[in-house]
């Protein structure tokens, strides 16, 4: 009786396993494009009809783990399809992971389940190069993706980004990363709402403040001029760093980030690098401080949507799309990021960060235009990658003119390389705005520093406390923040230097 029960149990268990597991790992239907390139289960491959018995087993895999966030995966699928079609000895595995940036360093160290290429969001890669976990890619920079008559990747790369790619390890300076994208940041606005009420795009800060008041009065306080993602850092930098650049210029701002002495935090005179920081924080206070309010019917309304500080980027963007606010500080990725949430007919557009009236254009000069592009996301090859040669070939290929153009078509964003945009392509209004800002800015800039104090985390852009929180709540004025910060840095400077062994 016992053995009979056991048999029945075994049969039932086997039946259950056979029934359940195949349905779990079912796999997707292959998608074949017009050239015959196949995408199936994150695998991109091309079976050459001219090669007898061509199969995946005959090919070498390139595994790419990438941050599947704002720009999605279409651009990478398209690039991979072209690559495997032209290089049929390879097939590509695309592993999209929105959280890759926080976890990939462990894989670089252990080599377990490692990818051949990582494409991650802005973060500190310098330590990874120091530890020998990433492969130098000078040969990628020296390669000519457009053919022998074309330029090298190095020649095509924007100088600022080229400098960014370098690290000095064992007294040898080499390039370790390839910039992924060059962001455009500014203020995204609800174009339909602007059209409905006839609001003009403000060029200067005075005009912006006037617009905020007008939004409150036209909408009877029902629409806030701004919403922002307060629980996610960085979004205020898009505006504040731009204003700082307008006041101090690229050289002074870079002088700040070189951290030559504590005096880079001096804010008292117009020539001091941090003077622009003070002015920029004052502009922030005008739009987001606790006194940044407009009135309607005798009642005061804040320029910012209540509760913005507790919203993450997606919640804030949803509020914007729902029409609770007319504008949001954001970047060129927002349209792509929100594609699936946009209601039919909703039009968002991007405006340049407004100029500070009495700084950039004083004495009748033209305003100097800046695009603060924020630290770039980047691509790298791990030292322990299984297919370094294939990975380098693919990275070089990504800088080919037609692939760069394809990238911009797919993402609405640019990469920091020399290439012509595809003018015949029908970009969205939002992308048109972003590309216009990118192309026509006098400077595209993001902060970078090789200072040991910065790399060791001793000094930051803002020290002591977060200026945005304190200024918004009215606990600190921008001047008090800058003064407190300057004193704090002066007091600790020598200690920090001694801690990093530079004193």
């Amino acid at each position: 009786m016992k053995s009979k029960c056991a048999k029945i149990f075994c049969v039932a268990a086997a039946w259950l396993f056979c029934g359940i597991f195949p349905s779990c790992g079912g796999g997707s239907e292959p998608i074949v494009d017009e050239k015959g390139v196949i995408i199936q289960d994150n695998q991109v491959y091309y079976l050459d009809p001219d090669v007898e018995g061509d199969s995946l087993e005959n090919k070498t895999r390139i595994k790419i783990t990438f941050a599947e966030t704002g720009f999605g995966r279409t651009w990478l699928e398209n690039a991979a399809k072209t690559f495997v079609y032209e290089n049929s000895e390879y097939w590509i595995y695309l592993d999209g992971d929105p959280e890759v940036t926080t976890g990939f360093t462990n894989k670089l160290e252990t080599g377990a389940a490692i990818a051949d290429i990582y494409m991650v969001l802005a973060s500190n890669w310098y330590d990874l190069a120091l530890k020998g976990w990433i492969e130098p890619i000078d040969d990628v920079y020296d390669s000519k993706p457009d053919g022998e008559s074309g330029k090298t990747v190095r020649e095509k790369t924007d100088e600022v980004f080229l400098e960014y790619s370098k690290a000095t390890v064992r007294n040898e300076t080499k390039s370790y990363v390839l910039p992924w994208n060059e962001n455009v940041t500014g203020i995204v606005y609800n174009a339909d709402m602007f059209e409905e009420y006839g609001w003009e795009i403000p060029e200067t800060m005075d005009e912006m403040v006037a617009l905020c008041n007008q939004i409150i009065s036209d909408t009877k306080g029902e629409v806030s001029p701004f919403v922002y993602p307060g629980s996610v850092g960085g979004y205020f930098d898009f505006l504040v760093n731009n204003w700082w650049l307008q006041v101090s210029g690229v050289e002074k701002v870079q002088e700040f980030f070189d951290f030559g002495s504590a005096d880079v935090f001096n804010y008292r005179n117009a020539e001091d690098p941090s003077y622009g920081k003070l002015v920029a924080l004052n502009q922030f206070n005008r739009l987001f401080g606790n006194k940044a309010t407009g009135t309607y019917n005798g009642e005061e309304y804040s320029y910012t949507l209540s509760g913005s500080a507790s919203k993450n980027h997606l919640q804030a963007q949803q509020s914007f799309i729902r029409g609770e606010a007319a504008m949001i500080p954001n970047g060129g990725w927002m349209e792509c990021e929100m594609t699936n949430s946009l209601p039919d007919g909703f039009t968002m557009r991007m405006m340049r960060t407004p100029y500070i009236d009495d700084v950039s254009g004083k004495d009748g000069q033209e305003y100097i235009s800046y695009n603060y592009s924020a630290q770039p996301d980047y691509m790298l090859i791990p030292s322990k990658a299984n297919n370094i040669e294939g990975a380098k070939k693919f990275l070089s290929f990504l800088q080919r003119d037609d692939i760069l153009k394809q990238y911009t078509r797919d993402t609405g964003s640019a990469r920091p390389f020399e290439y012509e945009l595809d003018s015949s392509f029908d970009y969205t209004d939002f992308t048109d705005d972003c590309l216009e800002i990118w192309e026509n800015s006098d400077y595209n800039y993001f902060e970078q520093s090789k200072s040991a104090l910065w790399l060791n985390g001793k000094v930051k852009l803002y020290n002591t406390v977060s200026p945005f929180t304190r200024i918004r709540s009215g606990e600190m004025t921008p001047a008090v923040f800058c003064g407190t910060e300057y004193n704090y840095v002066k007091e600790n400077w020598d200690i920090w230097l001694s801690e990093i062994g530079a004193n």
Partner: protein
Amino acid sequence: MKKIQAITLSAKWKERIFLLTMMAIPVAHFLVFFVYINLDTVALSFQSLDRSPSSSGEYIFVGWQNYREIFRGLTSPYSVFTKAIRNSLLLFALNNFVLLPLGILFAYLLHRKMPLAGAFRVIFYLPSIVSIVVLTMLFSFVFDSTNGIINPVLERLGLGHIIPEDGWLRSRDTAMKMVLLYCFWAGIGGNIPLLSGAIQRIPEELREAGRLDGVGFFGELWHIVIPLIGTTVSTLYMFGTTVIFTIFLQPKLLTGGGPDGETYTIALYIVESIRESGELTMGATVGILCALIGTPIVAITKRLLEKIFPTYEY
């Protein structure tokens, strides 16, 4: 052809081999995951990553530098670490001086078959068995400025003025209070199953004897129940003490440690300092300090509790 002689082992050797085999895995586990990791943590706390241009990325000995940096941070008015210590102590107080006494009271009430005891048992215990990720999301939604249900209710009640402009979880005045409120809500049922079990084991005749002597509801709780479940209370108190050094998921998921570091705890500080810098040395240093401070605290607390709550045989 040479005959192969079978090796025969004595029973004593067989027993030794058996024991060795059985011991090998736990001993290896202990050596790798306890001895090695702890020794490595001590070593890391005296090291720092060499970032000089001639470096090849090795960790170098820096003496007491990491410890000095932490102590310097403690005296800085802008230190997140100081806030982390304050918050960890607040959570310790909440656990041991609010949740534990309430847990005893509710467990006793449930045992005395208060009205709707079954329903309350579920209400108290439910948050303890639901994933913390789900609970924190739910809590955040409830207090969300746009879609949450709390703000409209407060506005209806004419209390709109107490709603913080920056939202409940991002205002510097309310963020830590909200973390404490969450821990209260989610933690109140956590102790009840253990305490209920302990109360049920108390012989009925002891309580009856008390009642015959005229002991009332609270008298029974104070003079009979609490002393007899003392060992369980001590254990829960010890668990409550360790949160000083271990609790981090709640503030991490609710506020991310913000705003301005207001909701950091010691454990969150360790996690974030490693995550942000990708470097283990400062995390290791804080960990060693916690062990140095925490071990005597836990040991002394244990001794005291053994005196306050002696073990009774019944």
